Every structure is written in C-alpha cells, then in structure tokens.
C-alpha cells in the first residue's frame, strides 16, 4: 500500500496548568488518512478530537503545544517545517472548516472578498477576472444557486447553512488534498445537516479529497465515514471501519455510545445517558491495543468483555 496522505504518530498535546506541571489533553494518538478517504473522529466534548485537528492544522492556540509525536502530510513532517513553509500548506493542500458557521466568517468583509483572499494567498499573480470567475464557480460547486448575488453579500445576510457552504467553498478553493471538518454540521438543523454532509461526501468523491470528520454524532458517522476513530479522554480507544464499528463494537465506551443513539423504535426513557459515575470510569480504564482484525483495533483491559 502506498504512503498515507496524513499520518499522525504518537501525538501528545499539553497545556500549561496553574499549579500543576502540565495537563495532557491528547495522549499518544496515532492514526492515518489515505488519499480520498473519510476518517471520522468521534468522541464527547473534551475528548481531544478538536485539539488533534487543530494540531494537524498548526493552529493550536499559543498556550497549547505538541509535546511529542509526529505529523506527516504528503511525506513531510509538519512539525519540523518552518512557519512560512507550514503556512503554504494551510489553505492550499490542507484546509479546515469549523463548527460555528455564524462566526467563522469575518463580519466586515463581503463573501467574495473572503473567497478571493483564499485564492490570492496561494496564487499571488491571479488576475481579478480569474478570481471573479473562480469565486462564482466555487459558490456553484457548493450548490449555491444565486452565486453572483451571494458573492456580494456580507456574512450576516446569509443563513447558517449558507455560511457553512461558503466556508466549504473557501476550503476547497485551492483543491486541497485534505479537508479537516470540525463538527461542521453540529450548529445546523437536521435537513441542512444532511445537505452539507452529502456536499462534503460529493466533493470527497469527485476530487479524491481526504477528509477528517470530527463529530460527536454517530448517525453522521454512518452517513459519511469510511473509517472511525473513537476518542475518549484524549486517547483513541477504538479504531475500525464504519461497518466493523457498527457491527461489532469492542470497547465498552463505543458500545455505550452506540446504545445512546436513538432510533425510531427506541423508548426515550431507556437511552443511556453516558453519565460518568466513578465506578463506570474505573471499568472503562484502557489497556493496551488489541487487534480484532486488520482494520479493527481496540484499547481495553483484558477481561473487560462483559461490559455493556
């Protein structure tokens, strides 16, 4: 098999704490994303999934830092690149969309200006006419019908779904190899969620674009992902293809996550709340990685099978 598009090895992210040494928010995380593959990272708030994605983009806030590990993208070690070299990758080969479309666009600039910015950074010689044409084309690609009109609007004049489409248009402006989507549908209502998901999926197929899709919503995972990483408390606890995970979940936490997913048949009183009481936390304590199949790994204690 050829080299993966993105590979993250033994990533550790730490934040300084007031009275302790340092708080580790991401522990020893390793995974890879192949060309054209959609990898979902699932986990609850604070599980480290967003931190991992920000570290890949090199956008960790100044306080947080990658303490150890390696991130390779297209064969280059991102952590070893000087800042100006690193910047050339962002927005071109690797781009990101965020959770809050309402606040992810600069409120003072027109949509076309914000798309043009993405194009100009990586193509300083591009003509005005080319920018204009390309911007309209991008807005059409994200299925915005009145592209010319939308290009001239300001963010506050667009709905959340439209803004997320614009964000995607900006993200795909330079035909990236990898799109990192940090809960891109969480702030949207369900019908718009579906549209944005299928849009991302289409772009993934059409452009052979790898996607890291971060979410806490397993139903979204089933829709979009090829492979899934389940994260909990800064660690990957299970890694599997989407079929294996739904078919044969191994880690107690994954099992409970799946159980917590309501279906039309579910009696709402019986949905597992996943509240962590200390006894449950104890039983969920992780052991070393065990291999279930070529594509299925789980981190758990021996003899914890009876859980769930």
């Amino acid at each position, binding site marked *: 098999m050829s080299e993966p598009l993105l590979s993250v090895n033994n990533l550790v992210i730490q934040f300084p704490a007031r009275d302790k040494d340092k708080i580790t928010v991401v522990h020893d995380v390793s995974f890879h994303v192949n060309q054209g593959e959609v990898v979902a990272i699932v986990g609850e708030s604070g599980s480290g999934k967003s931190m991992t994605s920000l570290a890949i*983009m090199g*956008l960790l806030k100044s306080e947080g830092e990658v303490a150890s590990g390696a991130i390779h993208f297209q064969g280059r070690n991102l952590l070893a690149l000087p800042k100006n070299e690193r*910047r*050339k*990758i*962002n*927005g*071109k080969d690797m*781009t*990101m969309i*965020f959770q*809050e479309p309402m*606040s*992810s*666009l*600069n*409120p*003072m600039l*027109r949509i076309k200006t914000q798309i043009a*910015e*993405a194009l100009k*950074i*990586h193509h300083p010689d591009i003509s005005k006419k080319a920018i204009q044409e390309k911007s309209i084309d991008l807005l059409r690609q994200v299925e915005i019908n009145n592209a010319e009109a939308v290009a001239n609007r*300001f963010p*506050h004049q667009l709905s959340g779904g439209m803004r997320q489409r614009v*964000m995607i248009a*900006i*993200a795909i402006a330079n035909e990236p190899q990898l799109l990192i989507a940090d809960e891109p549908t969480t702030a949207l209502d369900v019908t718009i969620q579906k549209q944005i998901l299928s849009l991302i999926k289409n772009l993934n197929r059409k452009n052979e674009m790898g996607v890291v899709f971060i979410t806490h919503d397993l139903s979204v995972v089933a829709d979009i992902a090829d492979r899934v990483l389940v994260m909990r408390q800064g660690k990957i606890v299970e890694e599997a293809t989407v079929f294996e995970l739904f078919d044969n979940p191994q880690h107690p936490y994954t099992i409970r996550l799946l159980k917590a997913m309501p279906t039309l048949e579910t009696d709402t009183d019986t949905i597992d709340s996943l509240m962590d009481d200390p006894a449950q936390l104890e039983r969920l304590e992780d052991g070393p990685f065990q291999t279930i199949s070529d594509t299925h790994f789980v981190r758990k204690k021996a003899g914890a099978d009876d859980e769930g």
Partner: protein
Amino acid sequence: MAFIKRSFLQIVPTLFILTLIVFGLVYVAGDPVVSMLPENATQEDRAVLEEALGLNEPFYVQYVNYIKDLVTGNFGQSLQYQEPALDLVMERFPATLVLSLMALGVAIVISIPLGIFAALKRNTVLDFLISGVSIVGKAMPNYWIGIMLILFFAVIIPIFPVSGAESPIHFVLPAVTLGVALAAEITRLIRGSVLEVIEQDFVQTARSKGQKETIVILRHVFLNSLIPAVTIIGLQFPQLIGGAIVVETVFSWPGVGRLLLSSIETGDMAVVQAIVFIIALITIVANLLTDAVYRILDPRIKYK
C-alpha cells in the same frame, strides 16, 4: 439618503434644545445692564438701556428675538471689544480646531500601534508597561503635562519653542499635551477589543487559509476592533476642544481659549454664548460623523 434624513430629524430638536440652554444660561447669569452702565447710573438710565436692549420683554419674546438673530448669524455684540461676537470667535476658532485635530492625530498615531502591540504581548512585561503608562497618562492633568513638556523639551533641551503658533514645529508640544490623555484611553480600548476579536472563529479561519500573521492581525483582527475606538473618538472630540482651551493658556496658543476666559471674567455673555454654541455644534457634527463611520466600517449596522 435615509441616513441623511434621519440625521436631519435628529439635529433639529437637538439644536432647539441647545439654543434654549445657551439662552437660558445667560438669562439666569445676571443682569447685563449692571455691568454695562457706570456705577452712578440712575434708575432711568437703566430703564432706557433695558428698553434699547429689549430686556424688558418677557422671556419668550426675548428668546424668539434671540433665535431670529441667530438665524441671521447675529450672536450679538461683544461688550469688551465692541465687535460682533461671532467675528471675534471665528477669528480664533480655526487655531483651536486645528490644535484639537492635531491632538486627535497624535492620539491615534500613538494609541493604535501600542494598543495592538499590548494585546499581542498580553500579560508580558511590555503589556504591563504600556498599561501602566496609559493609566498614568490618563491621570495626569493636561496643563501639568504641558508645563512638564515645556520644561523638558523647550527649556532644558530646547528642541521645540515654548509658545506661539507661527510654524508647524510650534504645533508639536501643544498637540502632544492635548493628545496624551486620549491616546492613553484609546490604547487601553484597542488592547481590550483586539484581545476580544483575536479569540473569534473568523481569525482562526484566516489562519487556516494560510494567511500571514501580520495580515491576519491587521485585516481581520484590527478592522473588527476599531468600532469601540471610533465611539470613544467621536465622544471625546468635543472634550478635546474643551481641553484645548486649557492647553492654549499654557502655550499662549492664539485660539478661542483665552477669549473665552476673559469673556467669562468680564461677563461678556455674547461671546460666551457664541463659543458654547459652536462647541455644541461641533459635538453634534462629531456624533454624526461617528455614525457615518460606523456605517462604513460595519456592514451589519443599517438604519431603517
């Protein structure tokens, strides 16, 4: 167009209230006849003068006459100079206005880079230093700053002239004196709003596009942190003119300041009224400009 209409609707009542206050001020300030006549004047002399000046009329008649005069640009006659009050004021006002604008310029030039810098270096020694200096700058009365600047930069190290307004170099010390307090205030404001904006998602978006950090700061962060600064500048400009009157006295600046002081001392009410009226007018204009700048800066603000 709607903006202009709305502004006009705002100005008219404001002007009406303004004239009422300016006129009322003088009405209650004391009988001008006493100061106009010699001490040995008789009751008849007073009656004649009151009649001549229209002071025997009831309040509202006097007020209407006052408005009629105002509309024709007549602010009355200065008692000290025996010249139209407005001419006296307009002769000196440009110097005051220029000084205030220069001070504003000084304040903006100092505060914007310092404010951004303090925010980017937050909680470092440099940040504390800048914050400390701005608190001191805000706390110092401007006449004292003026005297200190004269002492250091005109007397001990004679780079700048002590007083006067003959050449551009004469502007430096008075403008700095007047601008320091405002600079201090805007610095703290810019620091605060930059810190607020820099945490916002769209700044992250700009970085994720691969934009250079300097451009991220100037284009995305700074532009969005300008609005509170614009408010303060709009609100402070009239106060700057008020401050200019004090600073003018320190630097013997040929502005409206000394005229105002001497007019208050001699009870030359026509001149006082004219100055107060013009400063109030500038306040209104400054507020309108602030509104207009808002509209240019922030597309979210729309007046219906």
